[in-house]
């Protein structure tokens, strides 16, 4: 979007702004005696990078940032994503040189503060989940899922149980679940949900046999509902010799309310960039620690932080039957510092207050909109509420169009068309960090849009009208992929 032209105008890309001779950084001269350069054929001649000055870089990226919706600028009720306030002290903590400028391979006695912090975080996450074995080395939710699936496989194989090739996954699951199971070599079997949104126990029973490695289940489900049959789900899977994997994407609902380990979960991952307030950064970094029962702890990915006597008090270690290393070093440390800071700030009472207010806010939205938007599973919801836009669809306006129209009202859209089992789904997650004033304004916007669907449907159908660009041609983008700037 042009902003008065010149270098603050975002319509020109970096290479298009490039002016030969401009520099954006000045480096010191070499202070060592000149050394012979390598053989000429090895040297590069075609380095194509922009030549822009520092003010231009600042103006361009600042202008770009202003094209985004973000938590700091907009209510962002994106279901399943837990877009809560990201405390600034967390960033400050991670940026101090004692954390940001330490090398992952420096001797352990030179990084005891970092290791102790990680060890404490392992303990907190183990306590919150009731699953005491924790590895912080996985870098995102899906990365944790992949590790969990590899652990499930390793566990069965170690018992000579190599015929367990299937993993059951409810039809409401995130796409990462089947993708992670497949990467770990499993065949995915979909389990239907019943009319209450719970796992259909009969269907699960039918496929729980000697070829079942386990189940991957999200609690609360992506319908925003606590599966009231969860104890039976765990029992059926365990009786068949399988393990229960929990996708912790929705843990914001359960903090301090229930421990997944106590319910019978064997392995879970947490999304620190959701539940524990670390910023999502426009698509990462995340952190997806895996938490497991004592029985599975020896399979955890390497490394874990151990506390030992004598010498360096804390050290990195590899569990006995570890599935191996999942990443270059020890995990997304900067994200882990932020999550630690968050837990320390809130403490026990604050952590319990998160789930209390997240669930209250979601139920408040549900009740305040139930006369205008269809609630396909009409039960007390957890941290998010899934509406269907079927009533509006019948009047010619789709869920997608409602979501886009919300942008004009200054609200980020809810998650659309997910979970897949809800027609015209609009999944709304307010989180605990929003004010009642904001929730009321959102409710009013949703009611206004419902009215617009009658009075001026084209206004909704052609939304958004106020964003830097209108509806984009996705088909063209896919048919003729233009993925980088090319010299004309």
């Amino acid at each position, binding site marked *: 979007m042009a902003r008065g032209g010149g270098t603050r105008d975002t319509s020109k*890309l970096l290479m298009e702004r490039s002016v030969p001779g401009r520099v954006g950084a000045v480096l010191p001269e070499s202070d060592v005696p000149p050394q012979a350069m390598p053989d000429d054929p090895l040297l590069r001649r075609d380095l194509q990078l922009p030549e822009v000055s520092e003010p231009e870089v600042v103006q361009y990226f600042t202008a770009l940032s202003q094209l985004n919706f973000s938590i700091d600028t907009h209510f962002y009720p994106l279901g399943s994503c837990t877009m809560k306030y990201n405390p600034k002290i967390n960033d400050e903590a991670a940026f101090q040189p004692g954390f940001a400028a330490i090398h*992952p391979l420096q001797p352990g006695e030179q990084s005891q503060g970092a290791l102790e912090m990680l060890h404490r975080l392992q303990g907190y996450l183990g306590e919150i989940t009731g699953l005491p074995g924790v590895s912080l080395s996985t870098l995102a939710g899906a990365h944790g899922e992949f590790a969990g699936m590899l652990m499930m496989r390793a566990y069965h194989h170690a018992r000579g149980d190599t015929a367990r090739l299937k993993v059951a996954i409810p039809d409401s699951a995130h796409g990462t679940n089947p993708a992670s199971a497949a990467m770990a070599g499993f065949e995915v079997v979909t389990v239907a949900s019943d009319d209450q949104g719970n796992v259909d126990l009969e269907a699960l029973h039918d496929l729980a046999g000697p070829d079942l490695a386990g189940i991957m289940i999200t609690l609360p489900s992506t319908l925003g509902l606590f599966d009231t049959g969860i104890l039976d789900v765990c029992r059926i899977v365990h009786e068949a010799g399988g393990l229960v994997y929990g996708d912790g994407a929705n843990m914001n609902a359960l903090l301090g309310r229930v421990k997944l380990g106590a319910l019978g979960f064997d392995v879970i991952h947490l999304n620190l960039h959701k539940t524990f307030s670390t910023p999502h950064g426009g698509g990462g970094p995340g952190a997806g620690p895996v938490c497991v029962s004592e029985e599975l702890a020896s399979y955890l990915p390497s490394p874990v932080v151990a506390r030992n006597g004598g010498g360096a008090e804390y050290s990195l270690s590899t569990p006995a039957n570890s599935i191996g290393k999942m990443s270059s070093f020890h995990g997304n440390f900067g994200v882990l510092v932020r999550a630690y800071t968050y837990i320390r700030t809130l403490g026990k009472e604050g952590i319990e207050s998160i789930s209390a207010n997240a669930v209250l806010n979601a139920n408040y939205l549900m009740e305040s909109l139930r006369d205008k938007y269809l609630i396909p599973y009409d039960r007390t919801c957890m941290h998010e509420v899934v509406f269907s836009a079927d009533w509006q669809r019948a009047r010619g306006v789709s869920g997608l169009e409602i979501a886009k129209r919300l942008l004009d009202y200054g609200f980020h859209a809810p998650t659309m068309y997910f979970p897949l089992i809800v027609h015209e789904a609009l999944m709304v997650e307010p989180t605990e960090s929003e004010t009642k004033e904001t929730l009321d304004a959102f409710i009013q916007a949703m009611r206004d849009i419902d009215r617009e669907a009658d009075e001026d449907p084209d206004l909704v159908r052609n939304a958004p009208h106020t964003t830097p660009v209108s509806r*984009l041609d996705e088909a063209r983008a896919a048919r003729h992929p233009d993925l*980088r700037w090319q010299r004309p």
Partner: protein
Amino acid sequence: MTLQSHYIPNTPEEQAEMLAVVGADSIDDLFRDIPDAFRNPTLDLPAPMSELDVQRELAELASRNRPLGSGPSFLGAGAYNHFIPSIVKALMTRGEFLTAYTPYQAEASQGTLQVIYEFQTLIGSLYGMEVANAGMYDGATSLAEAVLMACRVTRRSKVAVSNTISPAYFQVVRTYCQSQGIELNTVSPASPGIDDATSCLVVQYPNFFGYVEDLEGLTGLAHANGSLIVVSADPVAMGMFNPPGHYGADIVTGEGQPLGIPASFGGPYVGLFSAKQQYIRQMPSRLSGRTVDSQGRTGYVLTLQTREQHIRRERATSNICTNEALYALASTIYLAALGKQGLRQVAELCYQKAHYAAGEIAKLPGYSLPLQGTFFQEFVVQCPAPPTDINRHLLERNILGGLDVSPNGDYGGEGIPNGMLFCVTEMNTRADIDALVTALGEYN
């Protein structure tokens, strides 16, 4: 009773109002779907703290770590100490970038989407490759996904991995391949012994020991067998050395950390991933594409999403979802600031200083350079004593030494007897290097 936290606005009065709308007696009422016996367990966590107390505690923990800036540092091996212009942090921490989600709602995410497009452009250009994606988790996982992709592209399942790649990267590749029926073989780049069942040859450039591999010869050999060549390349070295794309590499990955990202004890970083255009539909992770809006204006969207997990589920090219977008942004800002001249300068400074250091160390009695060839900023020194002993001596002089790559070293790999892998970058002054040489000389 719940705490009134500064992160949670609802007051008890507001909660009561909202509960009345909901028709519940208490907040606990909302959790009645949780089986009674398991609801509200004892939670053994510390008490809440004030921001001031939290700052003090974090500062105390941080004070027990040695930051790279506190003295001369010569440790690399996959995480590098480079200069980062101030604007990188200033821009990447803008709330509009920092607190946005993955740009699924294109109209509300043009900033992030255009940044990804810029990132794809710059990384493709840096590696001399036709297409790059929006980034992976880190250098090791990028390489592992490249191996999986090469197996999909060639429909072959044998992989030849050079014994000069990072031992940590090898371990991650092994973890990723363990359940896919892939046969991993370690080979010497001098005679890789690949055949027509080999899906890909995997090399690092410069290799783990800092030396430049013969990419021209290796690429020819791979292609002669119908195999792909997968290269993990240091992006800063691309400022002076020919990129893998110049030699015809098929997939080029790398660790983005050297491009404006602090060492941060190993993460978050960003994995770089690029390939030939013909393999685009087998690529993992997000892609931002340029298109037009309904009024004909240029805009950006996530594209070719049918490769991805949220559409394709168990048939996706990868399970990756959240990646490291914020650090792709950091690298983009870094490359914009350094630009054509700056990146070359950084690379040449690293090269000049590393060669000065290597030359001075090799003059010391008892120390030698056991490897031949052209190196960039890292090199192996054969020491007169076990590297751990020498590193202890260096630390007493406030110098962080190199990585122990002896056969008993804790970083794995085959090793070089009494070998230490040193890294010298533009951050090391001549005085730092001279102090290192003096301290090593004392140990002899």
